[in-house]
């Protein structure tokens, strides 16, 4: 009894929780200039390393405290969400379009197309992804565009591999033969019969990839290679927090918690969507 109830309700709960957090964050990102209590770039050495509001020595207006340059942590997190979301949407979408298309072609058509695409994927998989990303940004020069391009260039293989494998399974189904019997051409079958069945996985991956893009962006800014040095990125705040970990733990904890929840939400949101749109479970 319990078992069944758990299974049918859990996907919805996680979908709502994850979706809720992401919407909140998205709203904060869009409305950043209106809701951020302080200027995220304003330095004030008078207010350096203020603790969060519930602790001794906190200042009103600096809810989550300040960093070693006296910059307001909450405001930096809110503005950081902007960068995170831009990177997440742009990079994940680009990687998804490129990777899914190639994966669909490789998986459904097979033959030479598959062999060439798979070989390229093999080469790509032989790069350590983080190092590849750092290298690309170093080459392209720091900036939002470089970060987005670097993530897309590296992570299209994730979509390609999954979509290829699923398209291969789908293309062996009887309904694909059924469509041939009905007189559909190869392209028509790929788009009509195969793609809709692969789509839920693509959607789940897209959401997962957004979380990964957020992380990669954080890693890049952690090694100081993302946007610009003082731009309020989550990774930048974390790098700052890592240095002053013994003096001001909150500078590390708050961006960490934000990042943690965001990444978890993206992956759970994707899985939740996939389950929800699975016609067999619905």
């Amino acid at each position, binding site marked *: *009894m*319990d*078992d*069944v109830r758990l299974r049918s309700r859990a996907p919805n709960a996680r979908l709502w929780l994850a979706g809720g957090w992401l919407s909140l964050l998205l709203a904060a990102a869009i409305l950043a200039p209106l809701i951020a209590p302080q200027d995220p770039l304003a330095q004030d050495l008078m207010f350096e390393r203020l603790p969060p509001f519930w602790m001794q020595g906190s200042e009103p207006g600096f809810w989550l405290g300040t960093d070693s340059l006296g910059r307001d942590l909450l405001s930096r997190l809110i503005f950081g969400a902007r960068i995170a979301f831009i990177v997440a949407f742009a990079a994940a979408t680009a990687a998804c379009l490129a990777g899914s298309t190639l994966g669909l072609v490789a998986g459904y058509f097979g033959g030479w197309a598959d062999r060439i695409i798979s070989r390229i994927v093999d080469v790509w998989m032989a790069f350590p992804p983080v190092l590849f990303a750092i290298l690309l940004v170093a080459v392209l020069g720091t900036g939002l565009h470089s970060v987005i391009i670097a993530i897309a260039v590296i992570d299209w293989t994730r979509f390609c591999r999954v979509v290829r494998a699923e398209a291969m399974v789908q293309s062996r189904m009887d309904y694909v033969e059924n469509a041939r019997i009905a007189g559909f051409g190869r392209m028509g079958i790929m788009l009509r019969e195969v793609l809709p069945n692969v789509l839920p996985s693509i959607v789940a991956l897209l959401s997962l990839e957004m979380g990964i893009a957020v992380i990669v962006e954080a890693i890049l800014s952690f090694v100081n290679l993302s946007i610009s040095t003082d731009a309020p990125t989550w990774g930048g705040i974390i790098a700052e927090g890592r240095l002053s970990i013994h003096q001001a733990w909150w500078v590390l904890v708050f961006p960490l918690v934000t990042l943690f929840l965001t990444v978890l939400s993206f992956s759970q949101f994707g899985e939740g969507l996939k389950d929800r749109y699975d016609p067999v479970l619905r």
Partner: protein
Amino acid sequence: MSAAPCLEISNLSATLPSGMRVLRSVSLKIAPGEVHALVGESGAGKSMIGKAVLGVLPTSVRIVEGDMLLEGTRLGALSPKARRALIGARTALIPQDPLTALNPSRRIGPQITDRLIRILGWSASKAESRIRRLLDEVQIREPGRVVGCYPHELSGGMRQRVLIAAAFAAEPRLIVADEPTTALDVTVQKQILRLIADLQREHGTAILFVTHDLGVVAKISQKVSVLYAGMVVEEADTTALFAAPQHPYTRALMAATPRYTDPYASLLPVDAAVLAGLAGEVAEADRAWRPVHA
């Protein structure tokens, strides 16, 4: 037949997590050395009964009521460990699909001797000579070669022979044969049925024979229970059942089963009234039923 039954099931009910019953107060008795067929369509619960006896029900299915007595021993009263030991010593299973019934990564020999050695404590040489003899009995020509093979090196019919040999190895009192010929071609099916019948007679083993095929029932069993929705709708001696089926559902099943000797009197669709009657019986049974421990 005054001998104590080999297996006695009384009032057995099992439910899914949703509370729906998959077995509805099933009762049946199998005398020693008797082949008792359970026949029914998909969802009739015929495999469930065999699995319940052997204690290998899927985790989602729960027995909520009833007793099972194996040679007089109440299975429900035993500790899991004692029960496992008893099942291991007195029963065996011939599964449906010879493809998935052998572990692909282990050689045939150890797979059929491990029960004898590990569970029954036989010596390796005794177990081996026993298996040799049984492989011979199931007409496997080179037993020495076959025990060294991996399952994928044997054909489907060969694998089923190996499984039958393994089932008879420890002289069980009861064998559950779960659709043992469904995955086979007809010509192989006939050979395997004959083999099971011969060994069963020689060893005096009782068999609970699960099948969906009334043709197989007619050839192999002495008794039949016809099942529908986890309910025994008719139980009879096999000869009696085929001579004069009592329940309308049994009659409908017989009329639906194709017969090449009489093509136009067979393959008749089941009448809607029969199905409506069955639905009524199921509802009636559920209305009267209260689980003992709710």
